[in-house]
């Protein structure tokens, strides 16, 4: 998938929801294609960008609320779905939002809101071209949703969910005023978000009705990717992104085009590890830090693990600890060390190569600070005996760290030129003049 609009494409404009599309900036930027730069005209729509940012922020809040649901062990507090204790979820009386119900129910409401935002975003960036696919998809989802309960009564909830979202999609395709589409890449990312949000909703629901604990791991990991996609849309629709392209370019002497995505991938693996730990519902598999059961490497034989379970006094129910869970937490700690070192290295390399004032260097430094905070929150999660607010903050900063890594990777691919990209051997190391990038300007 290209990371920038292809030649001749524009970011959305026109009239959207009665708000005049404002072309606040038109800029030329370079895109590396087959080793040479091509100039592409792009425009930023401020309203669309704000909407994308708002959707990403709402999604981060949704991840926080989802984290709180797991931290409070409230994932099954509402046993039915998409209804809530038999009520239409939007009509469930506030007086009944108590205990675990509060967390799970508000998570569902916010998820519905984010779902609508994403459908709207897809429609907005897709412009007129999105109408037909949305109408077709909406109609199919509505019909399939009505058929599912007749085929499998156990999946009645999933059928209602599909019908509900199908109607929203159908309406978005039919009624919205017409506007120009955004760039091809932004449209692709919006469609990806459109698919992910629906898969997420289904997974969340099926995890409840099928009493399927492991689905929570998938649900949590996919949420992180979903946020990344929305952050990318927010970046690509921003004016800053266009300005950034004009600023400067540099040869990638520090292999940042390799290390940034690798460390980001490692963060994603770490988030999956974390989600697996949390969705084992076993509390803290190792209750102390930096040691583990007062040792560098804890005993994990059957008798020792049985002893760990007997000694702990959980005021909120938790599954028994297993040796697998102890290994999982040890791996999580080790991966945290690797990530910390990797991000520190990236921050240092970017600063040395680009200079302290370059946006990429600043952002990498902020990323490093985020990872430092994340390590502190990880330790605090253990020291606080997995206090739900601390554990949830750990989830949120983890999500931010992944998104930051993904955006930094994109920025690096925008401004850093591979050493092997047809540059003369005598080319200076470091920042290249902007005119070099604009050599193909019309």
């Amino acid at each position: 998938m290209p990371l920038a609009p292809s030649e001749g494409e524009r970011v959305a404009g026109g009239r959207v929801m009665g708000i005049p599309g404002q072309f606040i900036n038109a800029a030329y930027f370079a895109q590396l294609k087959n080793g040479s730069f091509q100039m592409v005209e792009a425009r930023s729509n401020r309203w669309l960008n704000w909407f994308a940012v708002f959707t990403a922020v709402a999604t981060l809040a949704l991840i926080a609320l989802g984290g709180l649901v797991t931290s409070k062990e409230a994932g099954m507090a509402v046993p039915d779905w998409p209804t809530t204790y038999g009520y239409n979820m939007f009509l469930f009386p506030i007086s009944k939002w108590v205990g675990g119900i509060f967390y799970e129910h508000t998570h569902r409401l916010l998820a519905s809101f984010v779902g609508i935002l994403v459908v709207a975003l897809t429609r907005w960036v897709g412009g007129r071209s999105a109408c037909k696919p949305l109408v077709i998809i909406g109609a199919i989802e509505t019909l399939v949703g009505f058929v599912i309960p007749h085929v499998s009564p156990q999946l009645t909830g999933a059928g209602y969910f599909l019908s509900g979202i199908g109607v929203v999609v159908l309406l978005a395709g039919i009624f919205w005023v017409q506007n120009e589409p955004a760039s091809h890449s932004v449209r692709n990312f919006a469609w990806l978000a459109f698919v992910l949000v629906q898969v997420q909703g289904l997974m969340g629901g099926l995890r409840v009705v099928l009493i399927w604990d492991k689905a929570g791991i998938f649900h949590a990991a996919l949420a992180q990717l979903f946020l990344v996609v929305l952050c990318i849309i927010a970046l690509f629709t921003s004016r800053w992104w266009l300005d950034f392209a004009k600023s400067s370019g540099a040869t990638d002497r520090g292999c940042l085009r390799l290390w940034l995505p690798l460390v980001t991938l490692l963060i994603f693996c770490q988030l999956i590890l974390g989600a697996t730990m949390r969705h084992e519902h076993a509390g803290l598999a190792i209750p102390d830090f930096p040691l583990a059961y007062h040792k560098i490497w804890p005993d994990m034989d059957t008798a020792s693990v049985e002893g760990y379970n007997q000694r702990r006094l959980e005021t909120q129910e938790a599954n028994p600890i297993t040796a697998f869970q102890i290994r999982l937490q040890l791996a999580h700690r080790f991966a945290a060390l690797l990530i910390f070192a990797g991000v520190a290295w990236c921050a240092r390399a970017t600063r040395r190569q680009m200079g302290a004032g370059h946006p990429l260097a600043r952002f990498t430094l902020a990323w490093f600070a985020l990872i430092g905070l994340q390590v502190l929150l990880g330790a605090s999660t253990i020291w606080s005996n997995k206090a739900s607010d601390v554990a949830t903050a750990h989830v949120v900063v983890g999500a931010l760290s992944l998104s930051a890594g993904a955006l930094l990777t994109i920025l690096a691919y925008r401004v850093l030129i591979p050493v092997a990209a047809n540059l003369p051997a005598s080319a200076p190391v470091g920042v290249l003049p902007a005119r070099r990038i604009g050599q193909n300007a019309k």
Partner: protein
Amino acid sequence: MKINSWQLIVPALAAGLQTVLAGDITGTITLNGTPPEPAIIDMANFAACSAQHAEPVKTMFYVVGPNKGLKDVVVVVKDITGKSAGASAEPLVLDQKGCEYIPYVSAVQTGQKIVIKNSDPTLHNVHIMPAAEGNSSRAKNLAQSQGDSFDWSFPAPEEFLKIKCDVHAWMFSYVTVVDSPYFAVTGKDGSFKIANVPPGKHTIEIMHRKAGKITKDVEVADGSVTVDAALEVPAK
């Protein structure tokens, strides 16, 4: 089908003879060592729960009586299996009252009915979490309003099968499922009685969620045999 009268008489006689020859296993389970202090459960944000308690509610990991008698210990005659009479046994009532499961620890036979009810003026969800393979199809998560009840049972033996409420995270209960009627759960003074155990040598298993598990050999004859045992607070 014509039934020979002997076909009725012989089993009845056998059952009667077994009862006459059977003995009781009685005893007291005590706890050695100093258990950790119970933690106070915070119900401050749950008026419907806290209003039902004059005193703060505490965790029940170790409920120790005046003579070190340990409550909530499950005692099972381990070597007698496949003798469940659960279908005809009195149902076990598991009540949700004051946002606590009562009883906290219990035991039933395979196939024995468990009546789970909600006496609280608030919503609960009954989240049944069997771990034994034979009980996997009996996992359930149901909503319950005040006054609601439903029946449930388990086909396979399982130790400390968990039932919890996710609305109130401190609410959980453990049911041990045994495939014979020869088991008991200790009371406040740590005492127990397993009645009508067939005569002969048996192994009894004594298990507590936190103090662990021990076994004892016992020979049952006509009358009553006493088995006292002590569990230990796990070393730190």
